[in-house]
């Protein structure tokens, strides 16, 4: 990289895209973005689970399929799945240094996508599946 003294380039333009995986800043930013979204969504999720405690099958169906609950659940699932994938990748990069690292990062993505797909499918089936 050229000397930093005589340049009109902003510092941001020099670091952008140059993280450890050439995407460090965007990884960090997405972690924060989903973390901020997770605060209200997790609180809503806890409230929904509290409402669902001890409920029977029909009550639980009615709860999950009501529009506000279904939308909040879907948003929580998507935001949390993306957030946990980013977070676990950091943990893997911190502790796994062997050839297993790439496999672990791939498995991590598969797990997060599987969790999101299964949960989204279930909410959509409950809502639109004519159950």
């Amino acid at each position, binding site marked *: 990289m050229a000397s930093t003294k005589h340049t009109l380039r902003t510092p941001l333009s020099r670091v952008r895209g140059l993280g450890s995986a050439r995407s460090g800043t965007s990884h960090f930013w997405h972690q*924060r973005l989903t*973390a*901020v979204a*997770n*605060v209200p969504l*997790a*609180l809503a999720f*806890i409230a929904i*689970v*509290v*409402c669902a*405690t*001890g409920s029977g*099958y029909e009550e*639980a*169906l009615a709860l*999950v399929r009501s529009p506000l609950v279904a939308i909040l*659940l879907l948003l929580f*699932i998507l935001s*949390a*799945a993306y957030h*946990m994938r980013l*977070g*676990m990748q950091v*943990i893997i990069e911190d502790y796994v240094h062997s050839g297993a690292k790439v496999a672990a990062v791939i498995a991590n993505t598969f797990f997060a996508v599987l*969790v999101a797909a*299964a*949960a989204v*499918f*279930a*909410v959509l*089936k*409950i809502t639109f*599946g004519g*159950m």
Partner: protein
Amino acid sequence: MAEANVPGTRPEDIRPLSPHLQIYRWTWTMAMSVAHRITGAALYVGSLLLVIWLLALASGPEAFETAQWFFGSFLGRLILFGYTWALLHHMLGGIRHFIWDVGLGFDAASRHTLARLTLIASAALTLLVWVIGYAVS
């Protein structure tokens, strides 16, 4: 015993060179940093609980009854209690990170207070949620 030896360092600020856990004396901020990572990893696995519950509900009455039976059992409740604490503690730890992200709370007193508050508030909130849960069910 290798210590970082920078001239002019106050005695209380002298740190061991080794970052290893058995050598570095535990502090509140360290403990809460580790707790943030452990709860994050626990929530990662715990996301399966939500998947199981939703899939059971989507599969029909029998599967749902089985899931409700499990989550209502002593073990199920214990797991859900732990999940509630992990989620609330991790959330408060995240809010602590947001405070640092905007450049606040870096002095020793604030770090210490924030770290202790995360634990106290997460314990209190978890109990509150469960008291409400038992009251409404």
